Structures are given as structure tokens and as C-alpha cells.
């Protein structure tokens, strides 16, 4: 087996960039949604909850196609974004990031929601009696205490984003250097005669990335938990 080719490097770096951007953009949104779901009862909560989990159970090709219909150049949102802000998702790496963000969102939100639910409300009450307004209670008590769950959600979301295939290829196709992530590259290689050794190299790389992400998340979560409880 020979060394990784420049084309393969391009796919690896693109995957990392797409997954990193997807995770960084999705995290603040995920924290907000997790907080809403953990702390409030409101009209339509069950519907919001179901909508977030939808990408987990829908065929990825359906999610990708819906993204294409919505965020494509002729899509309602896509046309508006392109005309007013100049942001184009269709057949761009940004579209791959959007697809990965949507697909990994349920995995990102769940641990954050659980960790916010686990924060002792009585500590938040104590903070309010010491003069902290609700948003400061959130920033100084709730958020730091939920940190292990937030890190876990980010890593899980990142790992899912790295591996995303169906929705991405449906939405933004499989263009080398623009939207061809590791998964799409492996898929292409398996369709090519003599592609096996290159596919295998990328398989090993994706296993390595997944392992590093999982081990890192375990270490981060342990450190955060220890720090929070002051041992």
C-alpha cells in the first residue's frame, strides 16, 4: 500500500473542515435548543423535539433532497440567501457543512440537553438570590456545569459529520476538491477499477479520526467532570 495521494489529502482536509465548521456553527444553536427543551414547557415542544430527531430516522437521501429543494439555487431559502447575502450552498463545500450540521444535530443536542437537565436548579436559585440576572445565572452556573455534556455533544456531532454521506452527496453531489469528503471519495473509489488500495487507505484514515475523536471526548469529559466537582 503506497502513501496518501494529493487527491486523497484534499478529501481528508475537506472532511475535517466541513465537520469542524458544521460543529462550531451547530453548537451554539444546539445549546439554545437543548436549554429550551430541558427547561421550558411550551406549545409545540413535542413537534420541535420530533423535528430535531427527524434526520436520525429519515433516509439520509430524503434529508439531502429536502435540503436541495430548500437551499438549492432555486429553493425558497437558497434563492433568497444567494440574492441578498451572496451565500450559496448548492454544490459548494458550505452546502456539505450544512448537510453535515443538520444530520449531526440530534447527536449534538441530546447529551447537551441531558447535562442541562442534570444541573441542580437549586444552585441556579442560589445564584439569583446573590443578585445574578437570569442570563448571568445561565452563563455562570448552568453552562459551566453542563460543560461535560456540551463537549460530549460536540465530539459526537463532529464524528457523525465526518462520516456523513447520504444527505451530503444528494444535496451537493460529489465534486473532487469542493464537496468530495472522505466518505464520498471512498464511494467513488469503490466504483473505480483498481480503486481498492486507495479506498482502504481512506478507510484507515476515517477509522483513525473516529478513534481519536472518541478518545479525546472521553478524556475531555473526565477532566471537565473532575474540574467541576473540585476533586
Amino acid at each position, binding site marked *: 500500500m503506497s502513501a496518501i495521494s494529493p487527491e486523497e489529502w484534499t478529501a481528508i482536509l475537506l472532511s475535517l473542515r466541513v465537520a469542524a465548521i458544521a460543529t462550531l456553527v451547530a453548537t451554539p444553536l444546539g445549546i439554545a435548543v437543548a436549554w429550551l427543551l430541558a427547561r421550558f414547557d411550551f406549545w409545540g415542544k413535542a413537534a420541535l423535539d420530533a423535528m430535531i430527531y427527524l434526520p436520525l430516522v429519515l433516509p439520509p437521501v430524503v434529508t439531502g433532497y429536502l435540503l436541495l429543494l430548500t437551499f438549492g439555487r432555486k429553493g425558497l431559502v437558497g434563492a433568497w440567501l444567494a440574492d441578498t447575502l451572496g451565500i450559496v450552498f448548492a454544490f459548494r463545500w458550505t452546502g456539505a457543512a450544512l448537510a453535515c450540521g443538520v444530520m449531526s444535530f440530534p447527536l449534538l443536542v441530546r447529551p447537551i440537553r441531558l447535562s442541562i437537565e442534570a444541573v441542580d436548579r437549586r*444552585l441556579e*436559585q*442560589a445564584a*439569583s438570590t*446573590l443578585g*445574578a440576572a*437570569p442570563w448571568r445565572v445561565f452563563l455562570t452556573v448552568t453552562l459551566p456545569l453542563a460543560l461535560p455534556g456540551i463537549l460530549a455533544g460536540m465530539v459526537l456531532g463532529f464524528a457523525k459529520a465526518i462520516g456523513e454521506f447520504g444527505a451530503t452527496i444528494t444535496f451537493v453531489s460529489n465534486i473532487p476538491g469542493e464537496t468530495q469528503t472522505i466518505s464520498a471519495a471512498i464511494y467513488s473509489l469503490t466504483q473505480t477499477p483498481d480503486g481498492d488500495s486507495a479506498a482502504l487507505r481512506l478507510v484507515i484514515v476515517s477509522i483513525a479520526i473516529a478513534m481519536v475523536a472518541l478518545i479525546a471526548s472521553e478524556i475531555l469529559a473526565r477532566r471537565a467532570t473532575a474540574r*467541576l466537582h473540585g476533586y
Partner: protein
Amino acid sequence: MLSVDIEKQLGDFKLEASFTSDGLVTGLFGNSGAGKTSIINMIAGLTAPDRGHISLDNDVLDDHASGVHVPPHRRRIGYVFQDARLFPHLSVRQNLDYGRRMNGFAHDVAAEKRTIDLLDIGHLSNRRPAQLSGGERQRVALGRALLAKPRLLLLDEPLGSLDEERKAEILPYLIRLRDEASVPMVFVSHDPAEMRRLATNVVILKRGKVVAFGGTDVLPAVL
């Protein structure tokens, strides 16, 4: 002057309490389930009464009729919980400093030193709450509440979670607090001996109703 006149439905019984006090330490005395904690939660603003009125020094905190409910963070009322509720992710020093930061007060080194010395917690500064004994935790919670410069300090059975030896350790601090810190307090307890040592005025509660109000002489005799 603290004025409380409230009604609140609590499960199967109704809390209907009315009293005013300008004593240094107002004791709320009664068995568990009499509604003591519910009353101070309402004074703190953590819950709102169904009906009625709460005011402190002519400052209306709750008034059902006019729809007033001042949120807890704007009341400047300190609260020492039975279970201390120190922030586990912060050091003792950061816990003590929390109220000052949230209220945007400047550092008052002399006052901080006075409070920390009064409670003997200076040597604990760099520890985390998990590394403190029950008594130390309760002293830090007292210091944290005091350093937020409250107009009134609520103490919910601050000795309740401690064994007899620890109680004997904390009580003198509370008495010093009463005599030196000049912050009016509302002290909740079901122990007549503690009440007698600390309170200046006593409100006796039974199943949500005030059954007696006066000096410590209204307390039942210690057997």
C-alpha cells in the same frame, strides 16, 4: 421592617401567614411541613404568593393586587440554604466573590476581611466546596450571602444538616453575626433551644397558620 401577608395553596393545605417584624432576628418556628421554608422562599422571591403582599422597609416586593413581583436577583435579600448550595465548579474564594461580581460592586477589602474573619474561613479560600466539611460549607454559604450586601438575610435551618457537635460550632458564629453584622435576619428552625439563643422575635407556625407571635417567651419550654 419586614411585612408579610400572604396566601398560598401548598398541596393539601393552605398557607395563610401574616406578620410584621422589625426585630433583629425574626424566628420562624414550627414543625416540618408547617410552611416555614415556603414563607422564606416567597420573601426571597423564588416563588410568588397566590394572594397577598410582602414588603421590606416600605419597598413593595410582592403585591398580588397590583401585579408586583420583584424577581429574586433584584431584591437584595440573602439566603443561606439548609444544604449550603455552594457552586461546585468554583473555589471558596470565587463563591464568596460571586455576589459582588453579579451586583457590580467594587471590592471593599475591609468589609470582606471582616466577614471572612468573623466566620473563620480565610484559610479555605483555595479549596473547592467538595473539600469542605459540613460546618465549613455552611460558614462559607453564610459569608457568600453576607458579601452580596443583603438588606435582609434568610437562614433556612442553617444548622439542620449538621450533627450536634457541628451545630455547637456554628451557633456562636450566628450569634456574632446578629450582634456585629447588623443585617436583619429571618431564621427558620424547629429547634426551640436554637430559637431561644438566636431569635429576638418569634413567629410560631402550625399547618400554614400563624398561631403565636412575640418574644422568645412564646416558645414552648425545653423539656
